[in-house]
Protein backbone atom coordinates (compact mmCIF):
# COMPACT_ATOMS: atom_id res chain seq x y z
CA UNK A 1 0.00 0.00 0.00
CA UNK A 2 2.91 2.37 0.68
CA UNK A 3 3.85 2.74 -2.98
CA UNK A 4 0.24 3.49 -3.92
CA UNK A 5 -0.04 6.10 -1.17
CA UNK A 6 3.27 7.60 -2.32
CA UNK A 7 1.97 7.68 -5.90
CA UNK A 8 -1.26 9.32 -4.74
CA UNK A 9 0.63 12.12 -2.96
CA UNK A 10 2.99 12.61 -5.90
CA UNK A 11 0.03 12.71 -8.30
CA UNK A 12 -1.97 15.18 -6.20
CA UNK A 13 1.03 17.53 -5.89
CA UNK A 14 1.88 17.26 -9.60
CA UNK A 15 -1.82 17.79 -10.40
CA UNK A 16 -1.82 20.89 -8.20
CA UNK A 17 1.19 22.22 -10.11
CA UNK A 18 -0.54 21.50 -13.43
CA UNK A 19 -3.72 23.23 -12.24
CA UNK A 20 -1.71 26.26 -11.09
CA UNK A 21 0.07 26.44 -14.46
CA UNK A 22 -3.35 26.35 -16.12
CA UNK A 23 -4.49 29.16 -13.83
CA UNK A 24 -1.72 31.64 -14.70
CA UNK A 25 -2.67 31.90 -18.36
CA UNK A 26 -2.42 34.94 -20.59
CA UNK A 27 -5.74 36.78 -20.55
CA UNK A 28 -8.38 35.79 -18.00
CA UNK A 29 -6.83 33.67 -15.23
CA UNK A 30 -7.76 30.01 -15.58
CA UNK A 31 -9.58 30.49 -18.89
CA UNK A 32 -8.53 27.01 -20.08
CA UNK A 33 -9.61 25.19 -16.90
CA UNK A 34 -13.24 24.59 -18.05
CA UNK A 35 -11.76 22.42 -20.83
CA UNK A 36 -10.95 19.83 -18.15
CA UNK A 37 -14.68 19.55 -17.40
CA UNK A 38 -15.45 19.34 -21.12
CA UNK A 39 -13.23 16.22 -21.42
CA UNK A 40 -15.92 14.43 -19.42
CA UNK A 41 -18.85 16.17 -21.07
CA UNK A 42 -19.50 18.37 -18.03
CA UNK A 43 -20.60 21.96 -18.62
CA UNK A 44 -21.13 24.54 -15.89
CA UNK A 45 -22.64 27.80 -17.06
CA UNK A 46 -21.15 29.97 -14.31
CA UNK A 47 -17.60 30.76 -15.60
CA UNK A 48 -16.05 31.13 -12.12
CA UNK A 49 -17.51 27.84 -10.88
CA UNK A 50 -16.46 26.20 -14.12
CA UNK A 51 -12.84 27.30 -13.59
CA UNK A 52 -12.81 26.13 -9.98
CA UNK A 53 -14.37 22.83 -11.06
CA UNK A 54 -11.67 22.34 -13.70
CA UNK A 55 -8.97 23.26 -11.18
CA UNK A 56 -10.04 20.64 -8.64
CA UNK A 57 -10.82 17.99 -11.25
CA UNK A 58 -7.28 18.37 -12.60
CA UNK A 59 -5.88 17.72 -9.10
CA UNK A 60 -8.10 14.63 -8.73
CA UNK A 61 -7.00 13.35 -12.15
CA UNK A 62 -3.40 13.93 -11.09
CA UNK A 63 -4.06 11.82 -7.99
CA UNK A 64 -5.51 8.99 -10.11
CA UNK A 65 -2.50 9.16 -12.46
CA UNK A 66 -0.25 9.02 -9.39
CA UNK A 67 -2.01 5.91 -8.06
CA UNK A 68 -1.51 4.20 -11.44
CA UNK A 69 2.14 5.31 -11.38
CA UNK A 70 2.56 3.82 -7.90
CA UNK A 71 0.93 0.52 -8.92
CA UNK A 72 3.20 0.26 -11.97
CA UNK A 73 6.32 0.91 -9.86
CA UNK A 74 5.32 -1.69 -7.29
CA UNK A 75 7.17 -2.11 -4.01
CA UNK A 76 10.68 -1.71 -5.44
CA UNK A 77 12.77 1.36 -4.69
CA UNK A 78 13.33 3.22 -7.96
CA UNK A 79 16.34 5.30 -9.01
CA UNK A 80 16.10 8.92 -10.15
CA UNK A 81 16.62 7.91 -13.80
CA UNK A 82 13.78 5.37 -13.56
CA UNK A 83 11.57 7.95 -11.85
CA UNK A 84 12.20 10.63 -14.49
CA UNK A 85 11.87 8.25 -17.43
CA UNK A 86 8.69 6.57 -16.24
CA UNK A 87 7.34 10.03 -15.37
CA UNK A 88 7.95 11.17 -18.94
CA UNK A 89 6.15 8.07 -20.25
CA UNK A 90 3.21 8.89 -17.97
CA UNK A 91 3.23 12.48 -19.31
CA UNK A 92 3.19 11.14 -22.86
CA UNK A 93 0.22 8.88 -22.08
CA UNK A 94 -1.54 11.84 -20.40
CA UNK A 95 -0.95 13.94 -23.53
CA UNK A 96 -2.29 11.21 -25.84
CA UNK A 97 -5.45 10.81 -23.74
CA UNK A 98 -6.27 14.37 -22.76
CA UNK A 99 -4.84 16.39 -25.64
CA UNK A 100 -4.66 14.22 -28.71
CA UNK A 101 -7.78 12.07 -28.25
CA UNK A 102 -9.79 14.91 -26.68
CA UNK A 103 -8.87 17.07 -29.68
CA UNK A 104 -10.07 14.37 -32.06
CA UNK A 105 -13.34 13.92 -30.15
CA UNK A 106 -14.05 17.62 -29.89
CA UNK A 107 -12.71 19.27 -33.00
CA UNK A 108 -11.04 17.28 -35.73
CA UNK A 109 -11.31 13.91 -37.39
CA UNK A 110 -7.63 12.96 -37.38
CA UNK A 111 -4.70 13.38 -35.00
CA UNK A 112 -2.75 14.72 -37.97
CA UNK A 113 -4.97 17.81 -37.87
CA UNK A 114 -3.32 18.86 -34.62
CA UNK A 115 -1.81 22.28 -35.28
CA UNK A 116 1.75 23.13 -34.27
CA UNK A 117 0.53 25.76 -31.81
CA UNK A 118 -1.78 23.26 -30.10
CA UNK A 119 1.00 20.68 -29.96
CA UNK A 120 3.42 23.19 -28.45
CA UNK A 121 0.84 24.40 -25.92
CA UNK A 122 0.08 20.93 -24.59
CA UNK A 123 2.93 18.48 -25.20
CA UNK A 124 5.74 20.07 -23.08
CA UNK A 125 3.34 20.87 -20.22
CA UNK A 126 2.01 17.31 -20.08
CA UNK A 127 5.54 15.91 -20.14
CA UNK A 128 6.43 18.35 -17.35
CA UNK A 129 3.49 17.04 -15.30
CA UNK A 130 4.76 13.47 -15.71
CA UNK A 131 8.36 14.39 -14.93
CA UNK A 132 7.37 16.30 -11.77
CA UNK A 133 5.16 13.39 -10.64
CA UNK A 134 8.04 10.94 -11.10
CA UNK A 135 10.47 13.27 -9.35
CA UNK A 136 8.15 13.81 -6.34
CA UNK A 137 7.57 10.05 -6.13
CA UNK A 138 11.34 9.57 -5.99
CA UNK A 139 11.72 12.23 -3.27
CA UNK A 140 8.95 10.66 -1.18
CA UNK A 141 10.83 7.37 -1.04
CA UNK A 142 13.12 9.04 1.51
CA UNK A 143 10.27 10.18 3.74
CA UNK A 144 9.98 7.83 6.76
CA UNK A 145 6.38 8.87 7.47
CA UNK A 146 5.30 7.67 4.05
CA UNK A 147 7.50 4.61 3.80
CA UNK A 148 6.30 3.18 7.14
CA UNK A 149 3.40 0.80 6.71
Amino acid at each position, binding site marked *: MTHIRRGLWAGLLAGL*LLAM*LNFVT*DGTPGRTLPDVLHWFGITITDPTLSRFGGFFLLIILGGIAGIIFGIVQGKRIIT*ISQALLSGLVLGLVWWVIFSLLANIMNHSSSPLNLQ*FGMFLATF*PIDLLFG*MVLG*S*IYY*QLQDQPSLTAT
Partner: protein
Amino acid sequence: MSVSSSANDRKQMAVTRSEETGITTPLTLSERSITGFALIRIFVGYLWFQQLFWKMPPDFAGLYSYIIRESQHTIIPGYGYILQHTFLTGCTSLYTTTGCTLYVPLAAGVWTAELIVALSLMFGLFTRFGAILGSVLAVQLYVGLAYTEWIWTYGMLVLLCLALATIPAGRRLGFDQWFAPRLQAAAHSNPLARFVSWFA
Protein backbone atom coordinates in the same frame (compact mmCIF):
# COMPACT_ATOMS: atom_id res chain seq x y z
CA MET B 1 24.47 24.83 32.88
CA SER B 2 22.41 22.43 30.75
CA VAL B 3 23.72 20.38 27.85
CA SER B 4 21.74 22.32 25.30
CA SER B 5 22.98 25.68 26.53
CA SER B 6 26.54 24.35 26.44
CA ALA B 7 25.98 23.29 22.85
CA ASN B 8 24.58 26.71 22.06
CA ASP B 9 27.62 28.34 23.69
CA ARG B 10 29.96 26.17 21.61
CA LYS B 11 28.03 27.07 18.43
CA GLN B 12 28.19 30.76 19.30
CA MET B 13 31.91 30.49 19.99
CA ALA B 14 32.43 28.75 16.65
CA VAL B 15 30.51 31.48 14.84
CA THR B 16 32.47 34.20 16.67
CA ARG B 17 35.75 32.45 15.91
CA SER B 18 34.90 32.09 12.23
CA GLU B 19 33.94 35.78 12.12
CA GLU B 20 37.23 36.73 13.76
CA THR B 21 39.33 34.60 11.42
CA GLY B 22 37.34 35.64 8.36
CA ILE B 23 36.42 32.05 7.43
CA THR B 24 32.98 31.85 5.82
CA THR B 25 30.79 29.08 7.18
CA PRO B 26 29.48 26.97 4.28
CA LEU B 27 25.73 27.09 3.78
CA THR B 28 23.65 24.08 2.79
CA LEU B 29 20.24 24.47 1.21
CA SER B 30 17.57 22.42 2.96
CA GLU B 31 15.35 20.05 0.99
CA ARG B 32 12.41 22.45 1.35
CA SER B 33 14.43 25.43 0.17
CA ILE B 34 15.75 23.74 -2.96
CA THR B 35 12.28 22.36 -3.77
CA GLY B 36 10.89 25.88 -3.35
CA PHE B 37 13.49 27.20 -5.76
CA ALA B 38 12.62 24.37 -8.16
CA LEU B 39 8.97 25.48 -8.14
CA ILE B 40 9.98 29.10 -8.79
CA ARG B 41 12.19 27.83 -11.64
CA ILE B 42 9.24 25.99 -13.23
CA PHE B 43 7.01 29.07 -13.07
CA VAL B 44 9.71 31.37 -14.50
CA GLY B 45 10.20 28.83 -17.31
CA TYR B 46 6.44 28.84 -17.87
CA LEU B 47 6.53 32.64 -18.05
CA TRP B 48 8.98 32.39 -20.98
CA PHE B 49 6.98 29.51 -22.48
CA GLN B 50 3.72 31.48 -22.62
CA GLN B 51 5.40 34.34 -24.47
CA LEU B 52 6.16 32.08 -27.44
CA PHE B 53 2.54 32.01 -28.52
CA TRP B 54 2.02 35.60 -29.61
CA LYS B 55 4.98 35.50 -31.98
CA MET B 56 4.63 32.08 -33.54
CA PRO B 57 6.38 30.87 -36.71
CA PRO B 58 6.46 31.01 -39.66
CA ASP B 59 6.23 34.83 -39.84
CA PHE B 60 6.82 35.81 -36.17
CA ALA B 61 4.55 38.79 -36.87
CA GLY B 62 3.76 39.43 -33.19
CA LEU B 63 7.35 40.33 -32.45
CA TYR B 64 7.54 42.99 -35.16
CA SER B 65 5.83 45.83 -33.30
CA TYR B 66 8.12 45.25 -30.29
CA ILE B 67 11.25 45.45 -32.45
CA ILE B 68 9.93 48.74 -33.86
CA ARG B 69 9.30 50.02 -30.30
CA GLU B 70 12.75 48.94 -29.19
CA SER B 71 14.38 50.75 -32.11
CA GLN B 72 12.53 53.95 -31.12
CA HIS B 73 12.74 53.89 -27.31
CA THR B 74 16.05 52.19 -26.47
CA ILE B 75 17.98 53.56 -23.49
CA ILE B 76 21.38 52.87 -25.12
CA PRO B 77 22.44 55.22 -27.93
CA GLY B 78 23.21 53.31 -31.11
CA TYR B 79 21.12 50.24 -30.23
CA GLY B 80 18.25 51.51 -32.37
CA TYR B 81 20.69 51.90 -35.28
CA ILE B 82 21.80 48.26 -34.85
CA LEU B 83 18.17 47.06 -34.87
CA GLN B 84 17.36 49.12 -37.96
CA HIS B 85 20.30 47.58 -39.82
CA THR B 86 19.67 44.00 -38.73
CA PHE B 87 16.08 43.06 -37.86
CA LEU B 88 14.56 45.93 -39.79
CA THR B 89 16.74 45.87 -42.89
CA GLY B 90 14.61 46.58 -45.96
CA CYS B 91 11.39 47.02 -43.94
CA THR B 92 9.06 49.58 -45.45
CA SER B 93 6.16 49.58 -42.97
CA LEU B 94 5.82 50.24 -39.24
CA TYR B 95 3.01 47.70 -38.97
CA THR B 96 3.85 44.76 -41.25
CA THR B 97 7.03 42.93 -42.20
CA THR B 98 6.70 43.96 -45.84
CA GLY B 99 10.08 44.22 -47.56
CA CYS B 100 12.06 42.96 -44.55
CA THR B 101 14.95 40.77 -45.66
CA LEU B 102 16.51 39.63 -42.38
CA TYR B 103 13.54 39.85 -40.02
CA VAL B 104 12.29 36.24 -40.25
CA PRO B 105 15.65 34.45 -39.70
CA LEU B 106 16.60 36.77 -36.83
CA ALA B 107 13.15 36.56 -35.24
CA ALA B 108 13.41 32.77 -35.55
CA GLY B 109 16.65 33.00 -33.57
CA VAL B 110 14.94 35.01 -30.81
CA TRP B 111 11.99 32.60 -30.72
CA THR B 112 14.28 29.56 -30.56
CA ALA B 113 16.36 31.12 -27.79
CA GLU B 114 13.20 31.79 -25.77
CA LEU B 115 12.04 28.20 -26.37
CA ILE B 116 15.40 26.91 -25.09
CA VAL B 117 15.11 29.10 -21.96
CA ALA B 118 11.56 27.90 -21.34
CA LEU B 119 12.35 24.19 -21.75
CA SER B 120 15.59 24.45 -19.77
CA LEU B 121 13.89 26.12 -16.80
CA MET B 122 10.68 24.10 -16.83
CA PHE B 123 12.45 20.74 -17.08
CA GLY B 124 15.47 21.67 -14.98
CA LEU B 125 17.74 20.71 -17.87
CA PHE B 126 21.08 22.58 -17.64
CA THR B 127 19.15 25.12 -15.68
CA ARG B 128 21.98 27.59 -15.19
CA PHE B 129 22.58 27.77 -18.94
CA GLY B 130 18.87 28.47 -19.47
CA ALA B 131 18.91 31.09 -16.72
CA ILE B 132 21.99 32.85 -18.16
CA LEU B 133 20.45 32.86 -21.66
CA GLY B 134 17.22 34.15 -20.11
CA SER B 135 19.16 36.92 -18.35
CA VAL B 136 20.73 38.00 -21.65
CA LEU B 137 17.34 38.07 -23.38
CA ALA B 138 15.79 39.94 -20.45
CA VAL B 139 18.62 42.53 -20.43
CA GLN B 140 17.97 43.08 -24.13
CA LEU B 141 14.26 43.62 -23.37
CA TYR B 142 15.19 46.03 -20.57
CA VAL B 143 17.47 48.02 -22.86
CA GLY B 144 14.83 48.25 -25.56
CA LEU B 145 11.54 48.49 -23.70
CA ALA B 146 12.18 49.67 -20.13
CA TYR B 147 10.86 53.19 -20.77
CA THR B 148 7.77 52.03 -22.63
CA GLU B 149 6.38 50.11 -19.62
CA TRP B 150 6.79 50.15 -15.83
CA ILE B 151 10.56 50.55 -15.46
CA TRP B 152 10.96 47.44 -13.26
CA THR B 153 8.97 45.06 -15.49
CA TYR B 154 11.99 43.78 -17.38
CA GLY B 155 14.35 44.59 -14.52
CA MET B 156 12.53 42.02 -12.39
CA LEU B 157 12.82 39.48 -15.18
CA VAL B 158 16.58 40.08 -15.32
CA LEU B 159 16.84 39.61 -11.54
CA LEU B 160 14.70 36.46 -11.56
CA CYS B 161 16.86 34.85 -14.24
CA LEU B 162 20.08 35.94 -12.52
CA ALA B 163 18.85 34.43 -9.24
CA LEU B 164 18.21 31.11 -11.00
CA ALA B 165 21.68 31.25 -12.56
CA THR B 166 23.25 31.36 -9.09
CA ILE B 167 21.27 28.47 -7.54
CA PRO B 168 21.27 24.85 -8.76
CA ALA B 169 17.47 24.90 -8.92
CA GLY B 170 17.29 22.08 -11.47
CA ARG B 171 18.59 19.51 -9.00
CA ARG B 172 15.11 18.97 -7.63
CA LEU B 173 12.04 18.34 -9.83
CA GLY B 174 14.35 18.44 -12.84
CA PHE B 175 16.75 16.50 -15.03
CA ASP B 176 19.77 18.15 -13.43
CA GLN B 177 19.15 15.89 -10.44
CA TRP B 178 20.28 13.04 -12.70
CA PHE B 179 22.88 14.96 -14.73
CA ALA B 180 24.71 16.87 -11.99
CA PRO B 181 26.28 13.99 -10.00
CA ARG B 182 27.33 12.19 -13.19
CA LEU B 183 28.93 15.28 -14.68
CA GLN B 184 30.66 16.08 -11.39
CA ALA B 185 32.04 12.53 -11.22
CA ALA B 186 33.34 12.82 -14.78
CA ALA B 187 34.72 16.32 -14.15
CA HIS B 188 37.87 14.97 -12.45
CA SER B 189 39.16 13.46 -15.66
CA ASN B 190 37.27 15.35 -18.35
CA PRO B 191 37.62 19.16 -18.75
CA LEU B 192 34.51 19.35 -20.92
CA ALA B 193 32.44 17.61 -18.23
CA ARG B 194 33.90 20.05 -15.66
CA PHE B 195 32.76 22.98 -17.82
CA VAL B 196 29.32 21.53 -18.57
CA SER B 197 28.76 20.47 -14.95
CA TRP B 198 28.59 24.13 -13.93
CA PHE B 199 25.42 24.54 -15.98
CA ALA B 200 23.58 21.64 -14.30
